[in-house]
């Protein structure tokens, strides 16, 4: 009799434990999914590229990076975000200084290359995220009317720790850090950009 009772008790307890574990797991999954429905992101329309993203992130190298929207980019030879247009021109008349203090903005010729006259070339600009500190100097230089406004700052989710103590959110003077709903998807495109032109083709062709 006592043996039967013990078996029943055992089954009862096991069921309770399994039930509780299942309930806890479901609750955890639900909470995780709910938290993934909205993330912080930089609103480019209000961002002033003030440099606080670089200094206010909890990470030593900020999770905020510059990205280039290729659809908006002019592929300029004289990109005001790449070269400091006020710096001393070289022998070809091209400004010698660069805007990025980390040299994180890289460029390469797209389409046919004219080696004799760089003015005949289009250049694709990408951000080396390992170097980018999120200072926003390039973003500021690309803002209209000087540029097309294709460079913008973005919180990168492969770097953001989701600490819920976002120093940038608190520090941002223009309230440009907003919550973006993400129904199971990235809120904005990643990989330093955005639809690239077809390889070997010039933009606008």
């Amino acid at each position: 009799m006592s043996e039967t009772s013990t078996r029943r008790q055992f089954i009862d307890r096991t069921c309770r434990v399994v039930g509780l574990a299942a309930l806890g797991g479901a609750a955890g999954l639900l909470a995780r999914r709910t938290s993934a429905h909205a993330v912080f992101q930089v609103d480019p329309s209000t961002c002033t590229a003030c440099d606080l993203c670089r200094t206010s992130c909890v990470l030593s190298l900020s999770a905020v990076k510059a990205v280039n929207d290729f659809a908006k980019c002019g592929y300029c030879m004289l990109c005001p975000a790449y070269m400091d247009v006020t710096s001393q021109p070289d022998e070809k008349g091209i400004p010698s200084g660069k805007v990025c203090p980390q040299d994180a903005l890289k460029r390469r010729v797209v389409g046919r290359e004219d080696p004799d006259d760089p003015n005949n070339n289009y250049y694709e600009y990408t951000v080396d995220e390992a170097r980018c500190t999120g200072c926003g100097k390039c973003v500021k230089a690309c803002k209209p009317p000087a540029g097309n406004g294709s460079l913008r700052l973005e919180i990168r989710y492969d770097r953001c720790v989701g600490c819920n103590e976002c120093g940038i959110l608190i520090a941002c003077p223009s309230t440009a850090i907003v919550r973006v709903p993400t129904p199971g998807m990235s809120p904005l495109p990643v990989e330093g950009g955005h639809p690239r032109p077809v390889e070997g083709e010039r933009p606008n062709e």
Partner: protein
Amino acid sequence: MDSNKVGPSPDIAEDARRERLSKRWLPLASVVGAFGVVAAAALRPGGAPPAASSPGAPGAAPSLPPPTEPPPALPHQYTRTAVVVGPGMPGEFRRWLSGLALGPRDAVYALGDDEVRVFEAGGRLTRTWKAPEKASCLGVASDGRVAAGSSGRVDLYSNTGVRIGGFAAGTRDKPADVTAIRLVRDEVLVADAAARVIRRYDLRGTERGVIGAKNKTGGFMLPNRSLDFDVDASGVIHATDTGRHQVTSWTFDGTMVASFGKFGMAKPEDFVGCCNPVNVAVAPDGSIVTAEKMIARVKVYGRDRMLLAVIGPEHFDPMCRHIHVAVDSIGRIVTADPERRTIAVFERS
């Protein structure tokens, strides 16, 4: 890269933990550090503190502009003598202003607020009519016929504003991005920024030729996706080649005959920024008037393409991407500032 990944990876979380710890001790460390620096500076001969940061370091001040030469005295001066239309004036544009052209008797034709508005040279509003949807530019023939350009389309109007025709511009695969339009010699010239050329059409819309394709790059270099042009009395087309920082001149058969201009931030005769000049007009005496963005200004180049005058940025909104320009029969420069929705007249003083 997986952008959905919100949870921290172990090493990043470790980074964050270290960061928080360092932040806790940061105030104390800063005080001790500052004291050390001050003490060291006081003990050094001369007492000067060490240099702040190296030029390449994050947060370092951007490089200073090169010393600019004092602006040379230019041969001509222009002063603003009239405002044709602006906020608070009769016929004002309340929402947008995007096109400007001069017609017979120097009447000012302007496109904005979904209308074409015609002003006398003195500023009196004489006629208006509904513009095609999303029209972006307009041109006026010497007899008063008007052409309005929109994406992939050209619409033609009589001098009284009655629609007399229209046609699709560009190709079926790539409709023209019409950024400028002129009516010359019974032809409609259309700047197609999508194809980076100027297209010649007859009044029925049959394409007669293409201008700008006969160069190394097969078209104008347009990082800002905008092309403007004007035609002088001898039939030469002067177009903005913004990526090259030039104004290039072409015959109707598509041969380039001249060009001038180069990039430069210091000398006023050069064109600033990534892509300038953005707008152009030809004066009756053959002078060329250009408009720039970044430094919103208008410049006048003589027949020998020497700089004659600068109408400075104090007259325009600094955010202006396009200052539309036109020159009337006696050489007055008419400008349209879309940001301030103002059309003004400048005369040589």
